[in-house]
């Protein structure tokens, strides 16, 4: 029986299908992007999830069932693909993993890099196993996605972020070679994710204008993102593209890359995004993951959600209430519940003026 959450009238799948058709829905879609917070829900350490598909699925499914949000995202950290290509990852006992060392330290070694094999390399098999289990358990009622790091960002993990920042000027051909091998790996992993019954969820933080200029983004990231998205589209899947930090000058490019939904963080003005690209693409995000979701009160969360819906609730291609980035692990459950509750209170259609946030 696919009932969805006890407080909702529709399942996420029903809601998202109806929303896309322009039909009646009970509330706006809502995705507090739960990553390693899922470990807290089943009472395990963060490090236990990373290479254990069964446990990762259990945590993510339990989190979905507890909060009733509209998208499961199998994710532990940004580095699983780069790790599967030789990067080393530091895994603290109970915190999110981080890059220990890039795969190579010299451009001369780029030729030795090979695209990862999702069936055998690093944690990829376990992330795919988590994906299959989640799809089997709740895939009929909620879309299951699996995080996939974009080619340029993955390339930066292969040789080091600071090194790639220099190479874009000093050895552009090397950057293209790194992006090409990353694209090939991303395409293979995307295919495996789709075979597992899910959709890749793209995340590409190094493409942010907080790091590289729009000009360099168009040169080194956009072409590879576009090819990756084309590939995913060929399987009939819709693509969400998340880029953190400042993105206002590349929103149009993100749309041109083919994204069906762009997920944006809190360092931009959502109203600007609605004006600039809201007629071409669905928007998602903008609730501050740190100051509001981690450190704020449920009342702060409620206010932030209302402010976002005031700005984007009427966007032509739709809006998904969401955190601006993956939630910090220790985000209080009460704040995640508050996000969903606020969206339920607002209801649908979003009546302008009825709930509008003032000040």
């Amino acid at each position, binding site marked *: 029986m696919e009932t969805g959450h006890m407080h909702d009238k529709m399942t996420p799948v029903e809601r998202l299908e109806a929303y896309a058709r322009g039909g009646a829905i009970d509330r706006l879609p809502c995705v507090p992007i739960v990553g390693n917070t899922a470990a807290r829900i089943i009472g395990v350490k963060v490090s236990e999830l990373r290479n254990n598909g069964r446990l990762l699925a259990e945590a993510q499914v339990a989190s979905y069932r507890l909060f009733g949000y509209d998208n499961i995202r199998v994710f532990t950290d940004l580095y699983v693909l780069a790790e599967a290509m030789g990067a080393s990852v*530091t895994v*603290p006992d109970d*915190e*999110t993993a*981080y*890059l*220990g060392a890039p795969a190579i330290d010299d451009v001369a070694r780029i030729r030795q890099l090979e695209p990862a094999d999702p069936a055998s390399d690093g944690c990829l098999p376990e992330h795919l196993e988590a994906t299959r289990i989640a799809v089997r358990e709740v895939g009929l009622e909620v879309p299951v996605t699996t995080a996939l790091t974009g080619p340029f960002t993955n390339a930066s993990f292969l040789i080091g*972020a*600071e090194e790639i*920042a*220099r190479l*874009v*000027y*000093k050895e552009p051909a090397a950057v293209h070679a790194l992006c090409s091998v990353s694209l090939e790996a991303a395409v293979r992993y995307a295919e495996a994710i789709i075979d597992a019954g899910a959709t890749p969820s793209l995340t590409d933080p190094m493409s942010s*204008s907080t*790091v*590289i*200029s729009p000009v*360099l983004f168009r040169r080194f990231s956009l072409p590879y993102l576009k090819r990756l998205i084309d590939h995913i589209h060929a399987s009939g899947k819709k693509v969400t593209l998340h880029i*953190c*930090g*400042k993105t206002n*000058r590349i929103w149009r490019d993100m749309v041109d890359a083919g994204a069906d939904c762009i997920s944006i963080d809190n360092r931009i003005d959502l109203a600007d995004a609605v004006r600039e690209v809201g007629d071409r693409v669905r928007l998602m995000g903008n609730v501050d*993951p*740190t*100051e509001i979701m*981690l*450190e704020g009160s449920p009342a702060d969360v409620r206010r932030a959600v209302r402010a976002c819906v005031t700005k984007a609730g009427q966007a032509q291609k739709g809006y998904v209430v969401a955190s601006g980035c993956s939630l*910090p*692990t*220790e985000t209080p459950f009460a704040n995640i519940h508050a996000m969903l509750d606020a969206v339920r209170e607002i209801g649908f259609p979003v009546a302008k003026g009825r709930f509008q946030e003032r000040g």
Partner: protein
Amino acid sequence: MNKTNEKREDAKMGDERQLFQDLSDAVVAMDEDRVVELARTVIENKIDVYEAIEKGLSHGMERAGQLFEEEEYFVPELLVCSDAMYAGLDLLRPYLTQSAEGSKRKVVIGVIEGDTHDIGKNLVKIMLETGGFDLHDLGRDVPPARFVQKAREVEADIIAISTLMTTTMDGMAEVVKLLEKERLRDRVKVIVGGGPISQGFAARIGADGYAANAGAAVNLARSLIDGDRAHAR
């Protein structure tokens, strides 16, 4: 001095000014080869090295920092500008007299334990060095106690801590607590920055300041030091 000599002096000063401007421009243009060529000209013509650094290399790097704040330049541009600046500095520094390098304010900088994202820290380091501070870089994944130990050892004026990860933010608070415990808090200013950090967070943990980017970090560091001086008076 007769008229001819005066003219010659004027011309020489004009040439020097042009050379400093060219150095500055070459840094902004990310042209490392040109910087090296111009730095050699400085040495060959026995031009004041301190001035060449101040009015040429540092001037250019400050302009690059300004462009960064204006979102004309981004991380790659700032890094490549700094490579050009440091290439020039490496050539000129051996010709500096000791006194010119003396009495600089000291900053201990690092990425807090649990994080290895160090581009932001490196940019702040570059801009603080450009701004005339003496930097002690602890690198990344630095335990809170190490910041305090180093600050004591070098008699630092400022500790600058960076992170990109929310999981590590408690470590920043720990540095402040350790300084208090070791009775160093009134001698050392603490400044924080990085993706998830905000002014509010800085205030909550009792840090002296927050900067949103590398350019702002220099202004913050200067104002804290100046504020201290004003207070001392």
